[in-house]
């Protein structure tokens, strides 16, 4: 077991063995069905949202276990993991070639041989090919001596290296390919080394491999070998934000080729992909050239789906650690608090017939019991008691659609309990510890992490954009709290939707917030019912910071550009205005939607 100490420890999926991956992985592909299906796909999501784990699960060793097949050829596709680490391909010397024709050619060669090396490393490490009769080795040898060798010659090898004899076993032949491409990659770096301190041209006389003329035909011929799956080859390029701009354009050119029936590109990004232009400056578009998935948006718009996934993930991790309880027992809610909220709910149900606002007695209880409880804590008991963010369900909501934001605090909670419990088995996390850790996380996210981001982005900081974003978050968080403790009919609000067009400056501040995870972006039907408008959802990770209720139903609030400008420029006066009821449009426009199914879909129904 690799998570011996802490069931919630986060490990790089690349390093996890296939049986463990299959054991831990919760099949999320019904939410992201484009990922395991043929076709080019961009999979976007912040770090820790599960992209690499999805890719790891698609690799053949995991797929063999999942499908119960013993033969590689029985699989529906062959997926090759191609991690793009920070300076693997983004070597500074490449800048010497910028704005020169050679830049595209050499960068493409570099990217091609890098990918090709990973293809054969995958055959060595992940394919689990048994070859007792030597038939596969023979076929592979024929492939190497035939089409593969011709491709090498075409790529410009003056004397192409001779593949090992057909009699060599399969591992030897595959290793030869790995060594070949590793060596080709080395040659590129050796050439770049000559450019380090050179401002004049330096001739390159090595081979040049591209996608259409080398990688694609190489994979096409590889795919028809008898031990390979009949379906397409997937190249899983993880963290493509780490490519330089030229390499990004080259990858987009590969996407543009629409070769997905044979080779599908699955490209993950951390929402910082440099461009969607190709090397020839054409734009690649969705859905013509690729499909696009934003993990946060999918999960932010469907809490029940996300909650189910997290529950299953946690259940598996606990089981692997022989903890004999489920997620809800392991992360218990604060019983006293839940009982008090339940009693408030009972009183709402009792008075529904005469004073009810919702269509069913339960609606009022769900909508108002928890906000009332929070409000009461802020009233007569202010300072003596605090709302406690605890219980599995609340923790799921607080992770705001990103699994890492569940696992990391959970890991800290576990470590804290471990440090005080000694050798005693841990069967639950006390609600006070849960509350303390998530409050610290929220504070860290809003203060320390924000400061760090601001420090790292000098230009944006100097232009005042980070101050404006901080103002906006404080204004909206404060406003949502005011609404939560008001007597309004709809009190749980986490989102704003524009009733008119946001101007460039306002939009830029929201977008900055989206980029760093403080907001999610979505769209909903506009007020007139004539089209759609932008909606921005505050991250629920901030709920403890602003004392908001992260659970269940959540509403959105139509706002004007002028109101958001006020929030950005004068957050305190904006919140004061909210307290007085200004900026709040009539209650009919504050539409509720059911977060338990699909927030946005439901909201439109209710409109």
């Amino acid at each position, binding site marked *: 077991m690799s998570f011996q100490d802490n069931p919630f420890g986060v490990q790089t999926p690349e390093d996890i063995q296939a049986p463990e991956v299959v054991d831990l992985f919760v099949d999320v592909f019904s939410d992201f069905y484009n990922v395991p299906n043929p076709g080019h796909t961009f999979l976007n999501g912040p770090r820790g949202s599960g992209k690499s784990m999805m890719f790891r699960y698609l690799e053949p060793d995991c797929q063999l276990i999942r499908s119960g097949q013993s033969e590689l050829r029985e699989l529906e596709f062959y997926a090759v993991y191609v991690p793009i680490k*920070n300076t693997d391909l983004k070597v500074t010397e490449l800048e010497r070639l910028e704005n020169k024709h050679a830049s595209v050619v050499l960068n493409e060669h570099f990217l091609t041989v890098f990918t090709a090396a990973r293809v054969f490393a995958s055959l060595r490490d992940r394919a689990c090919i048994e070859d007792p009769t030597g038939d596969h080795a023979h076929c592979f040898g024929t492939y190497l001596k035939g089409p593969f060798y011709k491709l090498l010659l075409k790529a410009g090898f003056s004397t192409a290296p001779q593949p090992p004899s057909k009699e060599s076993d399969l591992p030897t032949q595959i290793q030869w390919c790995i060594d070949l491409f590793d060596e080709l*990659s080395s040659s590129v770096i050796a050439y770049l080394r000559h450019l380090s301190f050179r401002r004049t041209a330096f001739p390159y006389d090595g081979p040049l491999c591209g996608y259409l003329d080398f990688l694609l035909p190489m994979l096409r011929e590889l795919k028809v070998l008898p031990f390979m799956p009949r379906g397409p080859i997937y190249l899983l390029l993880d963290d493509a934000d780490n490519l330089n701009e030229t390499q990004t354009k080259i990858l987009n050119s590969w996407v543009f080729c629409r070769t997905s029936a044979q080779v599908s590109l699955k490209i993950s990004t951390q929402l910082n992909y440099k461009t969607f232009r190709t090397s020839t400056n054409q734009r690649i578009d969705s859905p013509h050239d690729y499909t696009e998935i934003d993990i946060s948006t999918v999960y932010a718009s469907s809490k029940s789906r996300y909650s189910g996934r997290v529950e299953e993930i946690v259940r598996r991790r606990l089981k692997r650690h022989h903890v004999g309880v489920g997620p809800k027992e392991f992360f218990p809610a604060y019983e006293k608090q839940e009982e008090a909220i339940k009693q408030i709910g009972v009183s709402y149900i009792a008075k529904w017939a005469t004073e009810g606002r919702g269509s069913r007695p339960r609606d009022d209880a769900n909508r108002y019991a928890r906000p009332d409880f929070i409000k009461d804590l802020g009233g007569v008991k202010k300072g003596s008691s605090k709302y406690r963010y605890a219980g599995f369900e609340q923790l799921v909501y607080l992770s705001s659609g990103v699994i890492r934001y569940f696992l990391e605090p959970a890991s800290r909670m576990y470590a804290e309990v471990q440090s005080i419990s000694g050798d005693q088995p841990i069967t639950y996390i006390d609600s006070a510890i849960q509350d303390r850790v998530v409050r610290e996380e929220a504070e860290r996210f809003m203060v320390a992490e924000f400061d760090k981001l601001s420090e790292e982005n000098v230009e944006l900081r100097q232009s005042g954009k980070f101050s404006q974003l901080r103002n906006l978050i404080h204004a909206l968080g404060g406003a949502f709290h005011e609404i939560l403790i008001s007597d309004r009919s709809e009190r749980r609000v986490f989102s704003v939707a524009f009733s008119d067009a946001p101007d460039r400056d306002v939009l830029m501040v929201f977008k900055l917030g989206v980029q760093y995870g403080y907001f999610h972006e979505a769209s909903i039907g506009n007020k007139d019912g004539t089209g759609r408008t932008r909606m921005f959802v505050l991250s629920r990770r901030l709920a403890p910071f602003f004392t908001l209720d992260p659970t269940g139903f959540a509403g959105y609030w139509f706002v004007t550009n002028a109101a958001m400008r006020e929030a950005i420029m004068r957050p305190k006066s904006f919140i004061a205005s909210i307290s007085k009821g200004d900026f709040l449009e009539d209650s009919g426009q504050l539409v509720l939607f059911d977060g338990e199914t699909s927030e946005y879909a439901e909201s439109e129904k209710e409109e």
Partner: protein
Amino acid sequence: MMSQNQILKLSDLAKDVSRRFDIFICSASYEERCKSVANALADHQIVGKRLVCFNQKSSSAVASNAEYLTNRLGSNAEQVLLDKTSPLVTADNLQRALSRAEGDGNDLSYLVDITTFTHEALLILLRLLQSRVKRSPVVLAYAVAEEYSVGLPPEQKWLSKGITDIRSVLGYPGDSKPSRKSHLIILVGFEFDRAERLIDEYQPHVISLGFGQPGSATATQHEQINRLAFAQLASKVSKYKEFEFSCVDVAAVEAAVSVQASLFPDCNVIVAPMNTKLSTVGVAGAAFRNIEIQLCYASASLYNVEGYSKPGDKCILATLPREYWKSASTIKAPRDPSV
């Protein structure tokens, strides 16, 4: 290989330096310390040509200190513009300046005040010197700080914050093989959060965290801060290999880094030197003799300009032996024929 260090009083520097150097190179910074070595030498005929490097995209204090140094070092001084956002500009300007300063000279001796170069500029300079140095010595001078992050308690001390960019260092691209796993070696300094960010960005298979050997800091009071940073970083990283290195002995640093790299021969090695400048010189030595080592640099977005350091009254002189400049392979850093 033995590097020889001497610890001198700055006031005795001119007297104790036993020879004349053809070229003196220093770097202006917002720190007062950038003046320490130059002030100690300026009134003595110890150095010939003088190159005053400075980053053009820095605070106004840098430009004014560059002006001060240029005037202080006299008519033989030339300014060299570096660019902290563009290693190519830094390298090209350094290369031109070195060529001009060398003239027709052959086998020149260099005295380099490494105190306030950025780690990246220092590494680039060393790579450029590698192709120039012959028999005459290269001596490095390092003005010791009396205090870093002046006036703050150890747990609040900071020198820089944030990372704007992570890049391989020009001249040290390594030789990474796509099929291999990665091994990130960090020589931890004061800034654990920047080191943490590096780990997060690289997600290496193996992490080695090095901390300064007790008793090897440029001044003993800095050890506590280094240990604090190391402890903070270690608490956030689940699995790592720990090693020690000397903060001042170039040869010992090289040996420590080389040994650490050799522990995982099947990994691509990336080294991030984030400790003292002298240890960075040692890291460069390790990369000279092992081209598989890639050096990386995380450029900071904010420096503690107001209180980075308080100058001390001592200076370390490190004489680099001829072996330091040797490459493991026959590949030599080529000189640009156009300059």
